[in-house]
């Protein structure tokens, strides 16, 4: 009896162990494939941008490196101004979102008022509306407000964010009630508690959400394209597309150089703070 049971064990262990090893290999190969597919255009862009135009479609390990394309691209369009516009835009949106979402999330998380859940449901409904659907409506509103072709107009539709409210509400709800009570007992006002207890404890969420927001609005294209029509308001994405389509014909070297240049800061920032970002995402519960 016992002998047979023992005899069976190695086989069973192998049988149990085999399946995970098999799927593990599949997972690893799959991950590499996905990674490669994702990084290929980027690699091509890097290759083309830093080599003379002659090598744009030809691979030669010893092709001469050059920064000439970057220089040409930089001079071909007012990219400095576009950088400034985009920076103003994402900063404006980020600050406004933090300032507006924080009290809203706090109210939904910790205050009791009639209709709270109903109002929150309405806020959540906003998550299901694709921003592009509202393009025409938003444009009309901006015309009424006399804001067409301003940076504020690009930002305005995004200042109140249902996603931000939802995320911060979840985080605030996880703050132990006793911490709130302790602060109340020590004489903190409502805003004092929000500022000294809830906001510091939600820091990982702010970082994670901030990253999502900045990268989304750094890359946002359609709405800025519709609402802007001058150099002083255009963000990088719109500037880049105009530059790539009309001004230059199809010179891949310069286009890729300009593309790398415009997405570079975001890429570098992400690589630098990669670990913090990933940790923040884990802690904030977005994956």
């Amino acid at each position, binding site marked *: 009896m016992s002998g047979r049971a023992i005899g069976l064990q190695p086989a069973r262990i192998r049988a149990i162990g085999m399946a995970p090893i098999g799927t593990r290999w599949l997972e690893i190969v799959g991950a590499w494939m996905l990674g490669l597919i994702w990084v290929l255009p980027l690699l091509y862009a890097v290759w083309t941008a830093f080599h003379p135009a002659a090598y744009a479609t030809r691979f030669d390990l010893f092709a001469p490196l050059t920064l000439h394309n970057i220089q040409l691209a930089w001079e071909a369009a007012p990219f400095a101004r576009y950088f400034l516009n985009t920076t103003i835009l994402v900063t404006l949106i980020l600050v406004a979102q933090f300032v507006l979402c924080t009290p809203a999330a706090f109210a939904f998380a910790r205050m009791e008022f009639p209709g709270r859940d109903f109002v929150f449901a309405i806020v959540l409904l906003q998550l299901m509306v694709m921003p592009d659907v509202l393009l025409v409506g938003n444009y009309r509103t901006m015309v009424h407000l006399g804001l067409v072709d301003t940076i504020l107009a690009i930002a305005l539709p995004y200042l109140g964010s249902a996603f931000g409210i939802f995320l911060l509400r979840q985080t605030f709800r996880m703050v*132990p009630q*006793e*911490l709130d*009570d*302790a*602060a*109340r*007992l*020590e*004489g*903190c006002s409502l805003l*004092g508690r929000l500022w*000294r*207890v809830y906001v*510091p*404890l939600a*820091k990982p969420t702010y970082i994670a959400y901030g990253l999502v927001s900045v990268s989304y609005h750094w890359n946002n294209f359609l709405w800025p394209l519709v609402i802007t029509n001058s150099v002083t308001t255009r963000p990088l994405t719109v500037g880049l597309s105009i530059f790539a389509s009309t001004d230059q014909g199809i010179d891949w070297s310069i286009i890729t150089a300009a593309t790398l240049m415009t997405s570079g800061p975001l890429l570098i920032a992400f690589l630098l703070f990669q670990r913090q970002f990933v940790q923040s995402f884990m802690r904030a519960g977005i994956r």
Partner: protein
Amino acid sequence: MTIRNQMNESGADVRLHGVARSWGATTALSGISLHVRAGSFCVLLGPSGCGKTTCLRIVAGLEQASAGVVEIGGRDVTALPPAQRGVAMVFQSYALFPHLTVAENIMFGLKARSVPKPDRLRRLDRAVEILGIGHLLARRPGQLSGGQQQRVALGRAIVAEAPVCLMDEPLSNLDAQLRAEMRREILALQRRLGITMLYVTHDQTEAMGMADQVVLLRDGRVEQDAPPADMYSRPATSFAASFIGTPPMNLLKLSHEGMVPGTGGPVLGPPRAAATLAGIRPEALRLSDHGIPAEVTHAEYLGADTVMVCSVGAEGRLLARLPGRVAIADGALVHFDFGPADLHLFDAATGHRIPQPA
């Protein structure tokens, strides 16, 4: 010495008049009235869910009473916000702010109240000296052991220099040894500062060891409000009797003749029409050749004494705590005797104590 001179605090009276609290259909407190004298140590004792925390939070102002009045230091504070009531509080989970250092945690309230910096540091120094946590000031709560977190929480209560300190099961997250140590420390602290303490626990040994006054709660009502010695020697109800003591008081149901059913005597209580409970503390019983007949089911030797579990009559169970080591085989028949003053009688239906002719 110098520390004592700097102190401007001392306790304040705390009074509750008919305080009640309910949430919809659940009633947590129904008409609690009690008086805690200035500078005394009052323990709110009771099983889980009896309303202790609710009561404490109402005194703190963190919870609003549905009815009744709370007075602190002779002032009606029922409508005042927590910060204006002159109370400090130590929470069950310590409620330390994880993003702040120990020093910042302790001075949190002083900063929120804009106490000037020199004053803040003076109070911090004093609390640190009392609690011996000087080496921890730069750490964060996550880097502290349970006992150290407890000390920091006490520190935050000390620097508030409030006349009343509220504690909600502050020792329940500590291991047994540390708990005994902190118990002594909290008591010494309360005596030293002279503050009024309102302390919540479900552990009757804590209550007996620390309190000047024990308020026993049950289902949102005061079951008994008495000094620990009185609560032990004259429990007002069978519930109080069965809640206090290790092991708690034996309660034996008596027949109409006043005997334990299934035994031939002795007569424990007077013949009564209503059902009666006889209560005898395990430590009041002694082995004898007469008295209550019992059969030993099992004996537990605890070092200083032996707890003997016995069955009496048809369905009665009796615990006896006998000094030293008592070697009696399981199944043996013994008799227990006790002094006349050690017998307590309760009405089985209402639980109330039946007065006995002295």
